[in-house]
């Protein structure tokens, strides 16, 4: 009955100079689902993201993208295979225009030197630009394609980063704290925006501290604490789980 598993971690472990940051973590992300990865500070969420996207390589374990183990692939190869991510701190190219930033995301689909050297005014390359502009319009960002991103507000840059990630046509999109630094109105706006992204058939895996965003956006939640998975189930019941409560609020005798 369940949708197919599109991304799976199997016993993934990572230590930094002897300190285990992620221990034996396994979970499934199902196609079309919006999954949140939460946990107290230092729980290993961002490390898990970096292991999935390839910024770090896992000490042990397998990372399966549509059934293929990508744990040994280089980050760019993972992008080509259908994995995209945004960053906790915005990593747009500040002095490239909005549309150029988005077009950088298309490089995962570019092959060969001829593709790279074709001038933009030729029809074949015009199509790349048109695609980037129409994606921006589809997500309500079509008003300033030629503006340099350094000049734009934070909330808008966050969205541009997501649109850029979408240009590689990912199966799974990893979002690292998309609501960090946004006010309540911007967060609500972002939620609608991400709902729209999910409706395009992209599976979302989100690290987020803002529980209101997690509750309204994600149907499934995974909780990490000290590098261990302590909860994996529906978002609706995460706050009744004793282990999760203990991780966030401390042992019962402390909380009482």
């Amino acid at each position, binding site marked *: 009955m369940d949708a197919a598993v599109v991304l799976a971690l199997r016993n993934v472990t990572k230590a930094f100079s002897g300190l285990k940051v992620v221990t034996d973590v396994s979970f499934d992300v199902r196609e079309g689902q919006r999954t949140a990865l939460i946990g107290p500070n230092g729980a290993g969420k961002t490390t898990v993201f970096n292991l999935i996207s390839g910024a770090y390589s896992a000490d042990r374990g397998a990372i399966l993208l549509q059934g293929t183990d990508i744990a040994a692939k280089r980050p760019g190869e993972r992008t080509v295979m259908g994995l995209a991510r945004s960053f906790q701190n915005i990593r747009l*190219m500040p002095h*490239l225009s909005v549309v150029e930033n988005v077009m950088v995301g298309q*490089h995962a689909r570019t092959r060969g030197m001829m593709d790279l*050297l074709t001038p933009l005014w030729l029809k074949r*390359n015009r199509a790349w630009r048109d695609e980037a502009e129409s994606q921006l319009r589809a997500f309500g960002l079509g008003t300033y394609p030629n503006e340099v991103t350094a000049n734009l507000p934070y909330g808008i840059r966050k969205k541009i980063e997501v649109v850029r990630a979408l240009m590689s046509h990912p199966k799974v999109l990893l979002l690292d704290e998309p609501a960090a630094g946004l006010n309540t109105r911007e967060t609500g706006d972002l939620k609608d925006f991400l709902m729209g992204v999910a409706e395009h058939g992209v599976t979302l895996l989100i690290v987020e501290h803002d529980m209101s965003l997690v509750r309204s956006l994600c149907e499934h939640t995974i909780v990490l604490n000290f590098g261990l998975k302590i909860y994996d189930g529906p978002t609706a019941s995460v706050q009744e789980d004793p282990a999760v409560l203990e991780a966030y609020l401390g042992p019962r005798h402390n909380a009482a």
Partner: protein
Amino acid sequence: MILVLQQVINGVMLGAVYVTVALAFNLTIGILNFLNFTIPPLFMLTAMVAWASAQYGLPFGLSSPLNWAAALGDGIAVAIAASLVVERMTFRYMKARYGDATEHAIPLVSSLGFLLIIENLVRMAYGTEPHRFTTPFTNMNLRFGGLIVSIPQLFSLVLALAIVFGLSRLLKYTRIGRALRSIAENPDASLLMGVDVGRIVPVVFVLSGLLCGVAGAIFAINYGQVYAGMGNEVGNKAIAGMVLGGLGSIWGAIVGGVIVGVVETLSIHLFGGDTVQAIVWGLLLVALIVRPQGIFGHHAIGKGKL
């Protein structure tokens, strides 16, 4: 007055050489944050190979002596090939072995090694004395009032403008140009976005080899003589021009290179040849105190690079 104007014209022509070499420096430093010291010897190598091909023909008796244009083409091709070897042996090899994205001292030092090796190999093969390189229009001039513009100067200027224009179009309007600019601003994010960094970095070296080659060709056409020490002389001034104009900026390299060229010819004219180095570098130091980022200073130079 007319003499000063004539010196300005000569300075602009000399500046064209500096501009082209400065752009080669600028490209590797702007995109890879790598101060590539093999650029001056590649410039010299182009001119020396061109002279040797025009004098003796291709090596191993493959051809009779080439005409001037084919000889320059040969020189440029050798510069590009040598630039790719440098990429393999300095930048990529050192990077792959010693990894870290901010470690630039190792490629820098190994490129210094290449500078000395290439220059001394050329000295061993062809000696240190200047050699004549002639074109059919070596001694032709145009006169405007009292001003003289030689045809080689004009030809060189056109060549320099064409290569600068072509480079700026390539950077702005092709997918590879955008990839290069995105690597310059954020190599890690570019890599994660699927930009094929491993394939694009050699392109930087092809382009800087081409720029060195064109600069060497301009020099040979313009001055009619080439020598093993020419790389040092021009390389220093090109770096001065690049820094003056602002690292990482095409316009900066153009304006800075021309300023250095004009200051050089004017100071020779007004104060004599011995004063050139002191005046050019003194001017640079003063300019840097006033405006440390250079005239068209770029934002991202020196931050986390590939």
